[in-house]
């Protein structure tokens, strides 16, 4: 027992491996948020009048909103006026190729293991790298363009495809949805935009790396993905952030729209700086992610691997509006030290014969608390809706917490809803068995954990799955430093 506790101690206290800061001059707005700040951001980005008005609507909603109180942790006092709402690396000139990108920035990507080069093409990945709110480089656009696929930064979409942005922005997550979504609407900096035309199967995984860098800069990303009739797209979002002493707010909004027969797969690996072992620093991650299966037989699938952030508050959800539509939510959430995670999903069944599946795997270590919160709603017209939920928790040590808050609300008698839940501790017997085969404690725990999350990891695209496994190993092993 003594030994086991010692091991858990080491694992729980391991340091964040990706903590480093890149020193690049930033063009930064003074702290605070008001109508002038919003006008500044909008003007800086040369936005049309309608978008500025929409931002201001978001700001008004933000002013009216209260902080949520239902989550299973004490909400920190966030001083929204102490945050700077805009920062961008100073552009030297318009960049055409990687050679022109700041070498220091490239080095940062290198450290993160993000090969922003031709290898990605071979691997079938196009990368739109977002660095401190502004897109630095976008690759393989030409290839996608041939197919009529639009994959660009949000600002660019506003300029080039205003009709699409205007039509769909805020159609899934309204500007008044919650305080963080309102804040994002008011002050969003940049993000990604994807449009897949009718009947087109996007031939490569689309991926974007987000990164917070400038100190005290909140990051407010906005992502909008529209899959037109019969199309398919797989989108990857991954992020790591440098270490910080002060808390940073991250309030992203992601909207997915799947038309008839379309399918969107959205995968996330989230590894923002979680704070040190005493819980000092770390990112506050308040994210609103929602998709709508708008047309018949459409599909949306969320897969997330959440290892970072001091606080994670996110519920990637799906509105199943089209008949026969399907939605999935696969999640691994790891918390250690004093991390807090309150995450899960909402499946809103509105159409007939709609199906949803929820697989959630929580892993808690140290003094952390890990909560699953899920809502399955079946509306009066959703005949024969079906949901399956499996919700497992794994505890490492005896000072952490795992909590489950499943909500089921059904207004239709034909619904079938299944819920399974387990809570287990990593078995001493399992660790010893692996020890006896020459595998040390750290590797043993990594093996057991990777086995435990396999159902979720298998949902990730191959390349991402390998990264995610490494990330889990790094997160849980004491091997760092």
């Amino acid at each position: 027992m003594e030994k086991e506790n010692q091991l858990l101690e080491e694992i729980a206290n391991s340091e964040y491996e990706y903590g480093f800061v890149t020193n690049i001059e930033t063009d930064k707005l003074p702290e605070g948020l008001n109508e002038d700040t919003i006008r500044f951001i909008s003007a800086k980005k040369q936005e049309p009048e309608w978008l500025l008005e929409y931002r201001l609507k978001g700001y008004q909603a933000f002013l009216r909103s209260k902080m949520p109180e239902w989550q299973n942790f004490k909400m920190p006092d966030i001083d929204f006026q102490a945050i700077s709402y805009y920062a961008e690396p100073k552009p030297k000139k318009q960049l055409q190729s990687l050679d022109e990108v700041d070498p220091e920035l490239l080095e940062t990507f290198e450290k993160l293991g993000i090969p922003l080069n031709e290898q990605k093409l071979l691997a079938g990945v196009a990368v739109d790298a977002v660095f401190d709110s502004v897109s630095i480089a976008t690759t393989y656009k030409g290839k996608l363009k041939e197919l009529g696929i639009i994959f660009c930064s949000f600002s660019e979409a506003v300029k080039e495809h205003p009709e699409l942005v205007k039509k769909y922005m805020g159609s899934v997550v309204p500007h008044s949805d919650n305080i963080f979504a309102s804040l994002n609407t008011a002050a969003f900096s940049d993000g990604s935009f994807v449009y897949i035309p009718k009947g087109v199967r996007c031939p490569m995984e689309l991926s974007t790396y987000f990164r917070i860098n400038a100190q005290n800069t909140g990051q407010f990303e906005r992502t909008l993905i529209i899959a037109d009739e019969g199309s398919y797209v797989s989108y990857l979002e991954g992020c790591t952030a440098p270490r910080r002493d002060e808390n940073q707010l991250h309030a992203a909004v992601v909207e997915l729209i799947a038309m008839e027969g379309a399918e969107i797969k959205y995968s996330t690996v989230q590894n923002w700086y979680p704070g040190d072992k005493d819980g000092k620093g770390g990112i506050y991650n308040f994210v609103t992610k929602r998709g709508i299966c708008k047309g018949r037989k459409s599909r949306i699938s969320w897969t997330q691997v959440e290892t970072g952030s001091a606080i994670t508050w996110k519920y990637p959800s799906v509105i199943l509006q089209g008949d026969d539509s399907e939605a999935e939510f696969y999640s691994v959430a790891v918390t250690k030290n004093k991390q807090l995670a309150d995450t899960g999903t909402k499946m809103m069944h509105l159409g007939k014969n709609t199906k949803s599946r929820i697989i959630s795997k929580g892993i808690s270590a140290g003094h952390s608390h890990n909560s699953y919160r899920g809502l399955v709603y079946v509306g009066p017209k959703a005949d024969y809706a079906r949901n399956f939920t499996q919700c497992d928790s794994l505890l490492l040590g005896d000072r952490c917490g795992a909590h489950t808050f499943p909500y089921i609300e059904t207004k239709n008698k034909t619904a079938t809803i299944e819920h399974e839940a387990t809570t287990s501790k990593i078995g001493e017997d399992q660790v010893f068995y692996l020890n006896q085969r020459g595998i040390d404690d750290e590797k043993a725990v990594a093996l057991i954990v990777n086995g435990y999350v396999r159902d979720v990891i298998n949902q990730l695209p191959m390349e991402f799955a390998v990264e995610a496994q490494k990330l889990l190993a790094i997160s849980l092993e004491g091997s760092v430093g």
Partner: protein
Amino acid sequence: MLSIKNLQAQVEDKQILKGLNLTINPGEVHAIMGPNGSGKSSLASVLAGRDAYEVTGGEVEFYGKDLLELSPEDRAREGLFLAFQYPVEIPGVSNINFLKTAMNEIRAYKGLEPLDAKSFLKLSKEKQQLVEFDAKLVNRCLNEGFSGGEKKRNEIFQLAMLEPRLAILDETDSGLDIDALRIVANGVNALRSKDNAFVVITHYQRLLDYIVPDFVHVLFDGKIIKSGTKVLALELEEKGYDWLKESVHAPIV
């Protein structure tokens, strides 16, 4: 290779081993028999380094090293293998990946490069045949949903792959039908060599018809109370343990 002197150990303040002596040389097969609760499986656990067991006295030397000073994984890397009485299930971890990890950890300890995928698969195929292990089980998750017999056979497959210098088989025969028993025994016999040794812990003489031991020891109340050859096992089969117990408990006047 292994020398156990006056070994004493306890679990939660209960003395289990009370001064056990045993010497094993390369090429030998030792059978350890004894009634329930005599300490047979405890001996296996203590040698493998299970945390719950506290060694309170005595010494164990393995190839000149103080075994008791080594961590469980280092004991394994030194070539001590325990075929578990109750192998655990580890859901989601593939049998083959687990074995590859184990093998490369052991190789790294010896300063060897990891085995490349091709050689590893080749070796795995050879060993599967040697111990008649079902290829389907190789790719399943570690013992997950395996029958009792399949789990035991997986232990022997692992033994074949890891090629330890000393293998302890803890009641590997329990729960096996006669065909599985034969397959397991054939596997062990195929792996016997002049360089390695086996300790076979069993309740039944039956197994010893297949794996013929060089020595048979009777463990009772935490000590070896009698040693002999295969003949001893036959004698036990016939007479039970009581005649030996009586000799131990004979009142001292």
